[in-house]
C-alpha cells in the first residue's frame, strides 16, 4: 500500500564538510515507514543515527537522495517550508524535554498551534485535550521547573500530539529519566501507537527499542540490519 507510506527514503547520503575533511555521515540509506508503524532506530554514536533522525525530522536536508514525507518530497525545501512541514507533520519528543522554561505547561503545548495560526479558543481546547491524553489535566498551569522529569516529558508528548502530526519522532525520550518513569513514558508511546499514531523512536537501549514493531540498526552510515519485534517480547 504505497499511498500509506509516511516515510519513504531512497539512497540517502549526507556529507558534512568540516574544514578540509569530508565526513560521510550517511552513505546510502533506504527506509520505508508505513502509517501506524512503530519503528526504532538504533546504533552506536557515530553511526549516523542522529543525522538520520535530523533528516527524518526535517531539521536538516540530505546531500543526495530523496525523502518523501507523507507523499511530499521534502529533500529540497527552504528553511521556512521545512518549518511549516515540521509544524504540520512531525511531533518532536526530545531527550532533554526542550520546553520553554518561562511558559506554563499549557502554553508550551499550545506553541505549535500558535505557529500554524489556530484561533485562540480552538487552541486552548486542543491543548487541554492533549494534556488530558498524557494524564496531566491537573498540572496545566505549572511551569516546567515545577514539574518532575516524567511530567515534563509528558508535556513534551502532549506538545508533539497537539497538532495531529503524521508521525511522532522521539529522540532518546527516556534518556534523562529513571527506569520506572521511563517505563511509564514508554507506555504512553505504546498506547499512542495502539491508537494509530506513527512513531519513530531513536534510542541506544535495547529494552526501549523492544517496545516498537521494527528495529533498524545503523553502523557507519549504513543500515546494518533490520529486525521485526515479535509481539510476545513486547509484553
Amino acid at each position, binding site marked *: 500500500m504505497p499511498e500509506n507510506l509516511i516515510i519513504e527514503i531512497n539512497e540517502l547520503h549526507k556529507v558534512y564538510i568540516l574544514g578540509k575533511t569530508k565526513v560521510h555521515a550517511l552513505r546510502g540509506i533506504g527506509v520505508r515507514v508505513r502509517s501506524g508503524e512503530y519503528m526504532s532506530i538504533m546504533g552506536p554514536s557515530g553511526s549516523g543515527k542522529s543525522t538520520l533522525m535530523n533528516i527524518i525530522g526535517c*531539521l*536538516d536536508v540530505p546531500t543526495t537522495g530523496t525523502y518523501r514525507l507523507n507523499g511530499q518530497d521534502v529533500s529540497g525545501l527552504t528553511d521556512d517550508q521545512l518549518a511549516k512541514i*515540521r509544524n504540520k507533520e512531525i511531533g518532536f519528543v526530545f531527550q532533554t524535554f*526542550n520546553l*520553554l522554561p518561562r*511558559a506554563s505547561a499549557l502554553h508550551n503545548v499550545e*506553541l*505549535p498551534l500558535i505557529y500554524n495560526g489556530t*484561533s*485562540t479558543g480552538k487552541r486552548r481546547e486542543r491543548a487541554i485535550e492533549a494534556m488530558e491524553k498524557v494524564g496531566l489535566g491537573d498540572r496545566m498551569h505549572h511551569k516546567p521547573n515545577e514539574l518532575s522529569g516524567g511530567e515534563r516529558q509528558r508535556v513534551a508528548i502532549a506538545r508533539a500530539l497537539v497538532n495531529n502530526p503524521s508521525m511522532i519522532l522521539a529522540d532518546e525520550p527516556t534518556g534523562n529519566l529513571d527506569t520506572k518513569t521511563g517505563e511509564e513514558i514508554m507506555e504512553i508511546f505504546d498506547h499512542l501507537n495502539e491508537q494509530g499514531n506513527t512513531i519513530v523512536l531513536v534510542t541506544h537501549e535495547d529494552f526501549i527499542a523492544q517496545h516498537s514493531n521494527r528495529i533498524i540498526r545503523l553502523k557507519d552510515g549504513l543500515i546494518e540490519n533490520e529486525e521485526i519485534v515479535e509481539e510476545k517480547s513486547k509484553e
Partner: protein
Amino acid sequence: MSVASQWWEYFRFSYDALTANKIRFLLTTLGIFLGVTAIIVIFTAIQSINSYVKSEFSNIGSSSLYLSKFPWVITDNYWELRNRPEVTLDDYDLLKEKVETASWISPQIEAMRTIEYRNKNLEDVFTVGSNEQYVFTDNAEPEFGRFFTEMEVYRARPVCVIGQNVREELFKGRDPLGKRIKINGHPHRIVGVLKKMGSFFGFNLDNQVIIPYTTFQGISSHHRGISIAFRTDDPLLLDNLRDEIRGEMRKIRKLPPAENDNFAINQQTMLTDFYNKLTGTSYLVVFIIAAISLIVGGIGIMNIMLVSVTERTKEIGIRKAIGATRRNIIMQFLSESVAISSLGGIIGIVAGVLIAQLLLHKIKLDASVTLTTILIGYGFSAFVGIISGLYPAVRASKLHPIDALRYE
C-alpha cells in the same frame, strides 16, 4: 484571530524576556529615555516660545508698512545707518499726497511721558502722536468712547485716547471719558479707551496714550525723526505699496540710481523671518544632540539584543523545531527591542513633559504639549527599537535549528 494570537505570543515573548532581566532592561532603556526626554523638552519649549512670539508679533499690524530711519532687524553696519537722515513730518506731508496705493497713512511720533490726574502720577507712559488714521494703520479700535477726528488733528485739539493700563492706574474703574489728564503738564481731554492689547516682549502695550501729532509737545520742529505707517485695504497690493513708497522717498531724497536707500521700509514679516532664522538654527543643533543620544541608545539596545539572542539560542531552536518560521523569530525579537525602546520612549515623554512645564513655568510661559510632539517622541523611540533590533533579530532567525537545539 490567528494574527492576533501570534501578536499576543510576541508580546508574551517580550514580556518574559524583559521581566527576566529587569535591571538590564531598565539600563538599556536609559539612552532612549534621555533622547526622547530631550526631544520632548525641546519641541515643547520651542513650540511654546513660538506661539508666544507669534501672538506677540500679531500685535503689530501685519498688512502695514512702516517707513523709518532704521530697519527693525539691523544686519548692516549700525554706524552707517546712524548717519542716515531722519524721516520727518515734512516727508509725511509730501508722501500723503503722492502715495496713492495707501488707503491710510499715519505719522507716528513717540516718547515716554509722565501723566497726571488730580494727585496721581503715572511715569514713563508710551505716548504716541499721530492722526485719525492710526485707528486703521495700527488696529487701534477704541473699546469705548471714540478715536479723535481729522478735524481735531487739524485744529490741534488737546484730546487723547488712553490704554487700559492708564485707565486702571488713574481711574480705578470709574468712567474716564471727558476727564482731563495732564501729559507733561499739558491738559488733554480723554475721548476714548483702547482695547486691552497685552504686552510685546515685556513691553506693556496698554500703558500708552495717543494724541494728535499736532499737539505733541516738543514736535514744533519739523526735523525731528518720526516713522510713518502705510496700510492698503487690499493685502495683495502690499508689494506695490512698498515700491511706491520707495520710489517717492527716493525722489524726495533725490537719490541717484546707483545709491542705496537711506531709509527703511519695515514690515511685521521681517521680524517673524528673523525669528524663524534664529530658531531654525537652534532647532537643528538640538535635533542633532537628540539624534546622537538616540543613536547611542540604539547601539545599547542592539548590543543587549545580541546578548539576548545568544542567551535564548536554545529557545530559538525549540521554537524552530516546533514550526516557527524565520519571520516568526524576527518578529519576536523585534517586538522585544521595540518594547525596550518604547518603554524608554514613554518614560521619556512623561519626564520631558514635566521638565518642559517646569522650565516654561520659570520663564512664565504656558507649556503647549501637543499630540504631535508626543507622537514624534514615541515615533522616534519605536523607530530606534526597530532599527537596532533588526540585525539581532535577523541573526536569530538564521540560526540552524539543530545547532540552536544543541546549544547549552
